[in-house]
């Protein structure tokens, strides 16, 4: 019979913190943590001392003072008596506006160019290659400034539209005026409007919601809901009986008719821009700064997206197509059911990170005077109030929130389409 003795109980010695792998990681982490805290404390201490010397103890009260500057391209109502906070809010909305517009156009152009670069047509493929290389290898800031210069220098001034024989005419059946002060497009108007709802009273975050828009969205949403219900029913019937009832006309009707009736009831019409005096009145005015930024960002990002799309399509092995054909699938179904789902898995993550880049690049708006959040909060507000620390921190926070939300979408998507192996 043997007796099991306990392993010798080593008493804890201080040197084990370094030489024993069980404790070493703890030591390293503690040292890292202390180092980081010391560094942060040093930074904060320096900042406090410096700011006190400058007489600028951090506070955010300046946000409620009147801004005193104008924002020419805006989505909500604003005047120069509004607060810095409202100016920043409008800047943020402008950032989001140009980011969303840019992402949409960049995707459209990028997918088109990416597919055309794979075209069997030699000259088309080469033109697309030239486009991609040209835009990828030149700084985006240069493209933005160049787009702005082209818009200002080469487009006709509003006065060129005047007179009996004007030098310039409006485009698209006299509805769109392209001038060197921006582009005037028709605006939707309602003659029997239901009015607006004012939310949040007179505060800096106030905004109006158009009841017309809500009504249209509700009706349109109900139509779409109806269409999905009807298609589900058709599918049930098809599975039960083998015959699919024809839903095309009902679908089209549901899609257009209710919304159309509502629009007619509301008295929907377009307000066209008209030349009055020295400038155009009416319509929606998209300023040069917005157009230049939008154009340059979309074209620049589209070059990257084109490469991603091309890579994604090439990444699906040819065997997949052949296997789909061997199963007797037609080309459309092959594309939709076999190639696209696999290509999208490769395409979407880098595409989203390019959307993120576009959003961050939109901060270059400051170079052309588009009032995005960098131009309002990080530009004029910072210069007027002298609150560098607060404004730059808020600015970073805004971008960080946008970036992290986009990353969250990306992670969610990545997890959804992750290959599940064994």
């Amino acid at each position, binding site marked *: 019979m043997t007796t099991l003795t306990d392993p010798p109980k080593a008493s804890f010695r201080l040197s084990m913190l*370094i030489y024993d792998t069980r404790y070493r*990681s703890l030591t*390293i*982490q503690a040292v*890292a*943590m202390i180092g*980081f805290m010391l560094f942060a404390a040093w*930074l904060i201490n*320096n*900042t406090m*001392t*410096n*700011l006190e*010397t*400058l007489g600028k103890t951090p506070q955010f009260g300046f946000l409620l003072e009147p801004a005193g500057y104008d924002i020419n391209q805006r989505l909500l109502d604003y005047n120069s008596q509004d607060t810095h906070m409202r100016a920043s809010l409008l800047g943020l909305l402008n950032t989001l506006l140009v980011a969303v517009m840019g992402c949409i156009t960049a995707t459209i152009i990028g997918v088109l160019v990416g597919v055309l670069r794979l*075209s*069997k*047509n*030699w*000259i*088309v493929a080469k*033109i697309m290659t030239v486009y991609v*290389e*040209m835009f*990828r*290898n*030149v*700084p*985006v*800031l*240069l493209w933005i*400034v*160049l787009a702005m*210069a082209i818009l200002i*220098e080469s487009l006709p001034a509003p006065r060129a539209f005047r007179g009996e024989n004007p030098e310039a005419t409006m485009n698209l059946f006299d509805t769109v005026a392209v001038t060197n002060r921006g582009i005037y497009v028709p605006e939707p108007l309602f003659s029997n409007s239901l009015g607006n709802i004012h939310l949040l009273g007179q505060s800096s975050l106030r905004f109006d919601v158009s009841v017309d828009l809500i009504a249209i969205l509700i009706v349109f949403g109900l139509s779409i809901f109806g269409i999905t219900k009807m298609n589900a029913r058709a599918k049930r019937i098809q599975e039960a009986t083998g015959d699919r009832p024809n839903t095309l006309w009902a679908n089209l009707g549901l899609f257009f008719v209710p919304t159309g009736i509502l629009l007619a009831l509301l008295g929907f019409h377009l307000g066209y821009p008209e030349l009055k005096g020295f400038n155009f009145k009416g319509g929606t005015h998209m300023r040069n700064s917005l157009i230049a930024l939008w154009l340059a960002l979309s074209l620049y990002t589209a070059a990257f997206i084109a490469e991603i799309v091309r890579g994604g399509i090439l990444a699906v092995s040819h065997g997949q197509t052949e296997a789909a054909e061997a199963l007797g699938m037609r080309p459309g179904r092959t594309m939709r059911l076999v190639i696209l789902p696999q290509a999208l898995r490769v395409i979407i993550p880098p595409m989203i990170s390019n959307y993120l880049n576009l959003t*961050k*690049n939109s*901060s*270059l708006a*400051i*170079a052309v005077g588009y009032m995005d959040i*960098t131009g309002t909060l*990080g530009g004029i507000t*910072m210069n007027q109030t002298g609150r*560098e*620390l607060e404004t*730059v921190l808020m*600015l*970073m926070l805004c*971008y*960080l929130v946008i*970036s*992290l939300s986009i*990353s969250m979408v990306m992670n969610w998507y990545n997890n959804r389409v992750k290959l599940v192996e064994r």
Partner: protein
Amino acid sequence: MSDVSFVRTEMLPQQEPPGSSVGIVGWARANLFDGVTNSVLTILSLIFVYFVLEGLLSWTFQSVWNASSLTECREIMTATWGKTHGHACWAVINDRWLQLLYGFYPPYPAEAGVNFGENTGAWPAYFRPNLSFVLLLIAVAPVLFDKLPRKLLIVTAVYPFLMPWLMWGGSIWGPVMAAAGFGIGYLAFRLLTPVLGGLGGIIAAIALPVIWWLFLTGIVAAGLESVVSISIPEVESRKFGGFMLSILIGVVAIGCSLPIGIVLALGRQSDLMIVKTLCVGFIEFIRGVPLITLLFVASVLLNVFLPPGTQFDIILRVLIMVTLFASAYMAEVVRGGLAALPKGQYEGADSLGLNYWQAQRLIIMPQALKISIPGIVSTFIGVFKDTTLVSIIGLLDPLGLSNAIRADAAWNGIYWELFAFIAFLFFVFCFGMSRYSMYLERKLHKGH
């Protein structure tokens, strides 16, 4: 019974392929006019290319090269072609190209009293930035192309200390003493490890150079300078500009961000929770904000974060922030390289009994860095392009200079020629580097 009337006994000679499927015609049929849609596309594209080239080429080549102002340029155009638009006025580049390349960096003879003779050109006058650039190429060559002799790595090691001296000037003893700090660290590690043990050696190897840099470098350098004076005229940072500035910022940022990026990537991959959190936080924060906000920090806030009274110049502040920016991206590139290594490599290193740092140094990093070189190059291209952003905070990079040139009465109103020149130079750099990275990708792809 019918018999076979004819049986061929010899082979027919091979026929030529039909004329329409070989040569240029065949190529055009296969690649350009393959079906109706393709033919239409081809014709439309040809018309498009014709109009673009026609306008662009006549603008580029029917141009004015010698004039002292835009007005004079326009007069020459009117005299020659009868119209002022549709022709480039390259005279602005002819007049200002040195400024676009070097900013306000002083030509050497002007301040040193050395005369290279009349009109000897830009090379001797700007030999300091030019020499720095050539040495840069020599310094990175052995890193980029592994067929070159390994001895060239000495240039790579010396370059980080030589370049600041060449560019900013002053006494040579400052950079030499800064380099000596690394020597001291190494010596401390070698000599003190047997005395103090492993940990003591490492602490000494870190602490002694830091003490040296913080307290002794200045004194010793000043002393040596008074004994043996080797110095070249100093150049202030605010005179830096043009492509020289872009390249300087790009190269310094990438050079410094590589080690930081490697450390951050290792931290992000490690099991130590706090270290990992700190690294992830830093990387995601930097990648989440636009570079322009970091440049705002450099221009208005960095001095506030440092001890009261610290003042250092804007270029250095921008270099710090761009380096931090680049290192977050670099960390992600290196992390990609680390993740791409098969797990067997880590296990192999473990089974050999290597500790963490030995495994990283001998097994993991050489392979991971090799995989990530294309990524590093594309990060470099990105940072190089992003250097144009410094024009927004008032530095005179090419774009900033183009505004400065336009502010001059002589060249007021000139846009396209300046933009075209700047775009062309950026294109040449970035396209060249992207080709290199593609070559590398192909080369690295072969093995497995």
